[in-house]
Structures are given as C-alpha cells and as structure tokens.
C-alpha cells in the first residue's frame, strides 16, 4: 500500500474566494457552509446547556435569575432542535452524500439547495436577534396561552425564526426526494440503494409533509400575540389545547427527522466495519418508511394529562407502541450484522456502538411514556428530559459524530487522528450516561422539568448530572480540535481509506466538483463486502 497523496484538483481548490463559496451551487460546498453554521449553533446551544447545568448544581436558584434561567432552557431547546438537530445530518452529510451515493453530479435543484442555506441563515438571524435583544422564555414548545398572552419576551421574533427556517427544511427535503427519484446512476435500483438514502428519503417525506404544520402553528401564535385574534387563548374564545395538537403534529415527527438520518449513518458504518451486508436490508429500509408514516399518528401521546378523552388516549398509546417496533427491528438487524463479521474497531464504529446502546435505552424508556398510567406520573418530569436526550443526544448526535468521522476523509481528503477519536467516543459515552441516567431517577422521584430551583433531596443526582455534562462537553470539544487540526496535518486519506463499498468511495477524496469523472454504472447491491477482496486504496 503506497501512501496516498491529495488529488491535484478537487472541489475545495477549484475556486478560491468568498464569492466562490457564497454563490456556490456545488452540493458539497453547500454542505460545508451548513457544517460551519450548524456547528456554530451547536456550541451556542451547548453554552446555554452549560449555564443550565451550572444553575442546577445547587437546589436554590442562585446563579441566574428565574427569568434568565427560563430563557436559557428555552433558547437551548429552540437552537438545538430547529438549528442543530434538524439540519445536522440531512443538511451536512445528506447534502454532501446523497448525490455521491447515487452517482449523480449534484442535487436536482442546486440553486434551491443554496437558497435553503440562505433561508436557514435568515431564520437563524431572526432567532439570534431575539436572543440578543433579550431572549425568549416560553420553552421551545411555545405552549399557549402562556406564549400568546403571558410571556413578555421575544416570542414573535423567535417564532419567525422557526417559521423561516422551516422553509429551508422543506426545500432540502424536496430536493432529496426529486434527486433520489430522478438522478440515480444506471443500474442503481431502489433495492440497491444504500440505507442512508432510504433513511433520507423517509426523512424528506416528513420534512415536506410536517414542516408546513409547525409553520402555520407559530404563525397563528404570532397573530394571536400581535393582533389578539382568538385562536388559542380562552380569554379570547380560543382553545389552548388545540395548540398542543397542532404543535405536536409536527414536533413528534420532527423527532424522526432527527433520528432517521442517524439510523442511515449507523447502517453504513455497521456494514463497512463488519465487512458484511446489512442484515435484513429490506426490513431496515422499510422500517424507515414505517417510522415516517406511523410517526405522524402518535402526536397526542404528549397530551395524556391535558384532558383529552380516555379513548383518544388509548388509541394514541396503542399507536405509540406500534411505532416502537420498526425501531426495535433496526436495532436487532444492526446487532445481527455484526455476527460473523470481520470487525474493524475504528472510531466511527465505536460511535455507532454508542448509538445502538443509548438509542436502545432511549427507545425502551419511550415505552414508559407510551404506557398511559405510568405517563401520568412521569409526564413533564426529568424522566421525559432524560428519555428524549437519550434519543436526540445519545442517538442523533452519536450518529452524527459517527458519520462525521466516517466521511471526514471523503469530505476533506485527510484522516482525523484515530486514537484521539476513539478517546473522544469513550468520553462522550461516559459523560452522556453520567449526565442523563440520574435524570431518569430524578424524574421518577417527581422532579418536574423546567425548574429553576428544586427541593434539596434532589441535589445529589443533579450534581452527578452536572458533572457528567462537563465531561460530555469535553467529549465534544476534543473532536472540534482534532478535526480542525486534521485539515492541515491529517494524513492524506486516498479515495477509500475504509475499504468501503458505496459509490462515494469510488472517486477521489476530496471529490471533483462534478463528483465522478465518468457516471458510474451499478451492478450489485450496496453492501457486497463479502464478495469482494478487501481493498484499501
């Protein structure tokens, strides 16, 4: 094996200058624009989390005022959900990889792709402006009538930020759907597609169908707040619970926008590093679609104590259990993929192991919340907080980290330092569990979420959680440092450092602007590792 060199020409050096980036139509450059901005929002949202955990280290509300604390958890939620988790994998890895994995030169609508980034930035500016001029304190859920009648913070500006960013999400989803339908390389049939593509297809469906509902909902909040039109506020003749229906009709499927792409990453990484077909390919593929469809039918499980009828609650409880099955099927298939593999312990796989473990716990604790009688007790407590962080941080961010490490050599042509990455995976895993496991116990003991101060008997577990958050923060800073380091000092990766199947690995790293010198022709399934000799080139 000879030491690879960086290719002479690639998408990063083909043009220079700020204009060549801000006016680019190259999906890979747009992915990097997203990478930079989304990372910025991640660390901003993380900074709010640091303040939250610092405040909660003591029972008394002594570090921040109540109003400031309320703004911290609101802005943490708004930024992490709408400006980090939703765009993270689709807009960065999806943007970079969807065309490459299907042998296309770009997405179907390159200009719309660039537009979606600008829309994201515009929405981000509105939200940042709201943060700078005083913040918002409604919780990321914007529950009425608090958000329309009681809060005196920047609800409308934040809502507009969310509203605008939604269009970015819709356009990205639309672009992916058309691209996947129309631009697959010759021979690349639906059942030869990488599971990453299936996952993004399912995600895109949710983005296109669900996002308009949240857009309308926050618009109605803004209208009621500004013009006192009675929609949600009972004092104006509205119905506050109607808001919850509308909000969760999007915001529950939004959880699947966050987790499905991560599941796509997991399928790619598990197959590559165990040198095997993904076990039960079609079950994994269809489970993504099943999650996308059933995900739209479970929203009222957020409302079991909001006075909905007992029978409605039963239907939503039943459907919530049903939606858990496709996720369980995926976990079993990934685990079975490892069986009789040739397992190569590299950092992306370690992150994926973290994903599978934490997602399993996150999914199973979801069953607690789907069970009606138990949800009454744990609803709106730290149990819920712990559960969704296991899915969103333990699941979605672990998957994002796995994907970032896996495709980093493809994106920049250089390797990250492997030992550091393994260390970071370990630190994240330990820090995460120390942060969020105690919160399950806190929740069952009855500590409500969004509490600035709390009774003293909850302190020990809160201190553990805050300590864990510190470790978790370090776990995210380490990759930040070595990724930047690797851009200059990393070993040149070559086209396929992992010996992976998949069209994106057949071309140079970093790729040419047009991705492939010649349009590839596909003649086999996505993961025919066991048929080929191992080739690291």
């Amino acid at each position, binding site marked *: 094996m000879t030491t690879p060199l960086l290719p002479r020409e690639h998408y990063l050096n083909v043009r220079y200058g700020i204009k060549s980036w801000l006016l680019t139509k190259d999906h890979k450059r747009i992915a990097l624009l997203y990478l930079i901005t989304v990372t910025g929002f991640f660390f901003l949202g993380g900074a709010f989390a640091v303040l939250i955990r610092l405040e909660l280290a003591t029972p008394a509300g002594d570090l921040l005022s109540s109003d400031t604390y*309320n703004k911290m958890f609101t802005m943490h939620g708004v930024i992490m959900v709408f400006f980090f988790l939703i765009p993270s994998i689709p807009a960065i890895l999806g943007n970079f990889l969807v065309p490459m994995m299907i042998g296309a030169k770009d997405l179907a609508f390159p200009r719309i792709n660039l537009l979606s980034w600008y829309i994201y930035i515009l929405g981000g500016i509105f939200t940042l402006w709201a943060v700078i001029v005083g913040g918002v*304190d409604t*919780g990321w859920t914007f*529950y*009425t*009538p*608090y958000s329309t009648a*009681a*809060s005196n913070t920047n609800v409308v500006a934040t809502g507009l930020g969310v509203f605008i960013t939604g269009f970015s999400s819709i356009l990205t989803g639309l672009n992916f759907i058309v691209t996947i339908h129309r631009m697959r390389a010759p021979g690349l049939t639906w059942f030869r597609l990488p599971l990453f593509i299936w996952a993004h297809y399912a995600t895109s469906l949710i983005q296109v169908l669900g996002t308009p509902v949240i857009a309308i909902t926050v618009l109605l909040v803004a209208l009621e707040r500004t013009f006192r039109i009675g929609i949600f506020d*009972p*004092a104006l003749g509205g119905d*506050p619970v109607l808001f919850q229906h509308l909000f969760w009709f999007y915001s529950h499927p939004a959880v699947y926008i966050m987790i499905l792409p991560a599941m796509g990453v997991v399928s790619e990484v598990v197959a590559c590093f*165990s*040198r*095997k077909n993904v*076990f*039960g*390919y*079609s079950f994994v593929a269809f489970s993504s679609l099943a999650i996308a469809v059933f995900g739209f039918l479970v929203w009222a499980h957020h409302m079991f*104590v909001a*006075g909905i009828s*007992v029978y409605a*609650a*039963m239907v939503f*409880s039943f459907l919530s*259990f*049903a939606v858990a*099955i496709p996720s*369980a*099927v995926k*976990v*079993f298939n990934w685990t*079975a993929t*490892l*069986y*009789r*593999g*040739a397992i*190569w*312990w590299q950092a992306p796989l370690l992150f994926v*192991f973290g994903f599978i*473990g934490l997602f*399993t*716990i996150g999914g*199973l604790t979801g*069953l607690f919340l789907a*069970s*009606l*009688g138990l*949800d*009454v*007790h744990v609803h709106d407590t730290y149990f819920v907080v712990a559960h969704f962080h296991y899915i969103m941080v333990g699941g979605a961010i672990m998957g994002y980290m796995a994907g970032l490490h896996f495709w980093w050599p493809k994106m920049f042509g250089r390797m990250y330092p492997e030992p550091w990455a393994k260390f970071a995976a370990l630190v994240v895993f330990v820090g995460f569990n120390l942060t969020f496991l105690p919160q399950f116990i806190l929740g069952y*003991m*009855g500590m*409500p*979420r969004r509490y*600035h*101060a709390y009774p003293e008997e909850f302190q*020990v577990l809160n201190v553990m959680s805050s300590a864990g958050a510190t470790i978790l923060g370090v776990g995210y800073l380490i990759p930040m440092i070595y990724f930047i380091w690797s851009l200059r000092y990393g070993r040149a990766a070559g086209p396929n450092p992992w010996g992976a199947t998949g069209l994106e690995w057949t071309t140079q790293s970093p790729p040419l602007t047009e991705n492939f010198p010649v349009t590839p022709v596909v003649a086999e399934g996505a993961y025919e*590792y066991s048929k080929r000799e191992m080739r690291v080139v």
Partner: protein
Amino acid sequence: MWSGFPLFPEQASTLASEVDHLYFFLVALTAFFSILIATLIVVFAIRYHRRNPAAVGAPITGSLPLELMWSIIPFGISMVIFTWGATVYFNMARPPDETLEIYSVGKRWMWKFQHIDGQREINELHVPIGRPVKITMTSEDVIHSLYFPAFRVKADVIPGRYSTVWFNANKAGEYHLFCAEYCGTKHSGMIGRVVVMEPAAYQAWLSGGTGEMSLAARGQRLFEELACHTCHLPDGSGKGPSLVGLFGSQVKLADGSVVTADESYIRESILNPQAKTTAGFQPLMPTFQGLVNEEGLLALLEYIKSLQPAGAPGAPAAASTGVETQGERTSQ
C-alpha cells in the same frame, strides 16, 4: 447534601403501587433488552474482531424467521404493556362514586384550594387518609398542572375549563405538591405540600377552621349579590329556569338538543349564557364575564349543586353552614 438521598418516591396513595408495579416491570424489561444488546455487541465485536486487514464477513443477508421473531415478540410484549398501562389510566380517570370534593384554582404562581366546608388554603392541602379525594380545578391565567409525586397523579389545569384529579391517600405524612406545566417566572416556586392526616386529626383540622361560611353559602351570597335569584326562582316561574335539581340533570335546549348540566355547562351558562339557552326561555340573561372570578364561579357552582329538590338524598339546606355538613357531602 447527602442527608436524605432517596432514589425512589414515597408511596402514599392506593394508585402509587399500581403505577410502581408497571414501572418495575418496565425497568426490568429495559435492563433485559439493553443488557442483551450490549452483550451481543461486545461479544460479537471481540469474537469477530478481524484477524487480518483483508478479512471479510460471512455472506449472510438476513433471515425471515428471525425478522418475524423480533417483530412479533416485541409487539406482543408491547401489547401487554399497553393493556396494563391503559388499565391503570382508567383507574386514574374514574374516581369512585363517593369522593370528598375539593376545588382548586391555579394562578401564577400559587395554588388555591377550597374545601366544601369553607376552609381555604394556599400552597397547602390537607386531606384525610383512606378517603378518595377529587379535586376539580381551573386556572385563572395560563396552563398549570397539579402534580402529587407521592400519589403518582397529575392533571393539567387549563384556563376556561374544569379538569379533575383524584387520589386515595393511604399514608399519613407531608408530601410535595408541584406545578408540572411550565408557567413562567416562578414556575419552580409554584409548589407546596399536601398533608395527609388520620381521619380524627383531619376532623380536628376541619373544625379548627375559622368558622368561615361553607362554599355553598358563599355561593348563595354571591347568587344574591349578582341578583341571579331575581330571575332563577326555585319554582321555575321566573324569567330564567329554576336551578333546583339542575346539576347532573339533562337539559333540553332551545335548539332541541339535550346536554348534561355538568360543571362546564354551568360555567359556560354563567359566562356565555346565549351559548346554550334552555328550551322555553328567552335569551335575556346578560354575561357575567368579568363580574365573577374563578373562585366565585366555583362557589356559585357549589351552591347550584346544593340545590336539590326537597326530600332528595343528601340535599342540605341551601344556606347550610360549614358546621352542619363537616365535609360529609359527597358527589352524586
């Protein structure tokens, strides 16, 4: 800070153990599957750790029997949990026939409790042991949620409507009472304690009250102050229908439909009288929106509930005082 480091909440209601049994079952289930998956991953990762860089995995693509197995078994287990959880929920949703009724109004940032006999409490609630308690609640401003961790129950308290929560406390002591729905600045200060007392101690606490009027008596006074009594004559000869025996009855409306006269109907008929006009009466009643607050509405409601036809069981005199009834009145 280590003093008192509990990992499990106290069980102080009959529902608590039902909820906890389901919880323990799910904890065991979670532990089983998490350990199963983690063990498989670790075992496979070590057992099949590649021996040389050129090694490839076995050509296995899947197995229909396995797929069916790990779809159907989890589905079966989840249906067991579904049924179990729904059963507990039904028990929570349906209070027993005989309950001690208490009213509550949530407002930013306090809980006000109103006993039938007249006692009023703020951020503190006294209840007897071994007797089902039903709290009918509403909010003056935003959504709150009344949460008793030791009883394992909570219910959202929503402006403009009544919701209920019930429990049967079975262990004397003092427990937390929280607001669980975020409601603004002092959300985490909207807390208090529920004091569960032995029946005798509870009776003593009740009679130790300040001799305040019963809730129904307060309602009656308000009924007269607002001049409701000038139209709603007991014999039905007034401009408005008689309210005697109204609560819980079926009311025929001007549009021909029939509604049950429950808390929500009475509330609506005071605040928005034209919404559902009783058949045979002119829509003459003015709105009382803004003239009577949530606590006043609850007093009026309790007064109207107390108006039972003579001879009906459990019909106290309209103007009964707290001393006569001593919290003995029960819901129908």
